[in-house]
């Protein structure tokens, strides 16, 4: 295992009876990166991440997390990782500060939970029962619990599912902060936008297999999808001249709306320069870039659940 490798997975295999949830997948996670696992329902994300956390036992394959075998060295691994589970709860009649205080006692090395309350904006609800928290507050509490032992790796399994867009953005900032404080982050998500905005590298999986693994930018580039530039014009304007630009592949006009498309990323600069040089009056200029959603649809042939 290389020095900058946080997690190594080789030919991991797990089935439940006849159903194969994960089929011989191999990948590795580097130290200090945000690593995303993306896929539709039942793709095997939770199975994979919980094998890394030592909560499920693989049928076959090798898993090393921080150099440890999660099955054999569960205790010592749990001292060094933080976990947020897709499905878990804590007693409903327990108060926020009480859970944090309790979890502080479970680890040999911890941070001050009062700082975590502050950082996760939970100070106001520190004496509230768990059952009285909002969805976003519960999720922030679970983040706090996952950070209480100052872990080297943090695992988040669908951290933002069920949250409103605003709460989701708050969580994204928190995840970035966690990563900037030097921790490796492994997360699973249904949201392509989330993976695109947060992750250094994204593993796309379906039916228990890896479909692709790369940075969001490379995935989009490899897809070779089209960039589109759309603007409106007033009156009669000569637009045929756009065809002379090398990066332009197609020009179309519908009423007063012009759409110019091409695969090259320099398309936007070329088009805008041309508009200025020729003094073409335009308004409402928009661009459409291909994103991970397009990558996902083209690779799996289906749209991911929103």
């Amino acid at each position, binding site marked *: 295992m290389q020095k900058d490798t946080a997690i190594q997975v080789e030919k991991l295999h797990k089935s439940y009876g006849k159903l194969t949830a994960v089929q011989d997948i191999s990948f590795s996670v580097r130290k200090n990166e945000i690593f995303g696992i993306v896929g539709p329902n039942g793709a095997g994300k939770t199975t994979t991440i919980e094998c890394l956390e030592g909560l499920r036992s693989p049928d076959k394959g090798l898993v090393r997390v921080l150099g440890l075998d999660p099955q054999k060295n569960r205790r010592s691994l749990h001292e060094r990782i933080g976990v947020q589970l897709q499905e878990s709860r804590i*007693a409903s009649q327990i108060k926020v500060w009480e859970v944090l205080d*309790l979890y502080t006692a479970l680890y040999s090395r911890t941070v001050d939970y009062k700082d975590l309350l502050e950082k996760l904006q939970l100070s106001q609800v520190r004496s509230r029962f768990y059952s009285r928290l909002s969805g976003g507050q519960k999720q922030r509490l679970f983040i706090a619990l996952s950070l209480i032992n100052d872990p080297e790796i943090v695992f988040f399994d669908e951290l933002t599912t069920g949250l409103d867009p605003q709460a989701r953005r708050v969580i994204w900032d928190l995840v970035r902060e966690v990563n900037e404080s030097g921790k490796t982050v492994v997360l699973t998500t249904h949201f392509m936008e989330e993976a695109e905005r947060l992750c250094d590298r994204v593993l796309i999986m379906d039916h228990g297999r890896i479909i692709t693994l790369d940075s969001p930018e490379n995935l989009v580039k490899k897809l070779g999808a089209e960039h589109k530039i759309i603007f409106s014009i007033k009156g009669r304007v000569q637009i045929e001249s756009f065809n002379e630009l090398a990066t332009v592949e197609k020009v179309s006009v519908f009423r007063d709306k012009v759409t110019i498309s091409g695969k090259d990323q320099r398309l936007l600069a070329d088009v805008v320069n041309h508009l200025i040089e020729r003094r073409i009056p335009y308004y409402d200029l928009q661009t459409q870039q291909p994103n991970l959603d397009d990558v996902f649809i083209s690779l799996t042939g289906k749209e991911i659940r929103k």
Partner: protein
Amino acid sequence: MRSLLKLTWVEAKLFFREPQALFFTLIFPLILLFVYGGVYGNKSNPMFGGFGMVDVSVPSYTAMIIATSGLISISVIVATYREAKILRRFKATPLSPLHLLTADVIVIFFMTAVGMMLLVVVAKLVFGLRFFGNALSFAGAFVISCASFFSLGFILCGLIRTARTAQIVSMALFFPMILLSGATIPIETMPEYIRNYARFIPLTYVVKLLKGFWFGDSWSQHQTELVVLTVMFVVGLLITAKTFRWE
């Protein structure tokens, strides 16, 4: 060790926030005491061998509190943990799940003892309760009874999956048991044929043992009860070890 202490403390707080367990452990025995004590007082009664109604009732109600803890509290708490996926979250920490159960057993045992002491103090102050035995022997009998019934509770945990079933099953066992064992209505007042059935009810042995020690019996006078309760304890542990699941 630190984690066990903290867990025990948190579980104790949670116990106090759970109205049902609290009611059956602390309040229900007092209600019975005031109903029966209010009607009969604590005068010497030939039916109870010259002792008073309250004298006879307090050790019996103690048996009922033990049954509450063993049958209801333990099975409901463990089933809730499982169902609410609370154990899963603990599994992702260095905590051993055994610590969690230990903390619960400590808390439930402690609450059983508190329930008994509350009963004794109130009965003494209000009805002039009298104690004729040896406090240490009685405490010993109390511990043996708890061990035996807690072990019974863990058998239920192994067989029952959801919190709802745990509630229903434990209640369905609890009420006939406290009614027919003499834990609530003195066995002496019951018809002959019911007294015959009582032999097959585990709680009867707790009632007999605690009553005996309350009135100063010696250990050798209660060999049957001690054997039955010990066997229940051991069998319960063996079954639990085979059937218990964390998830």
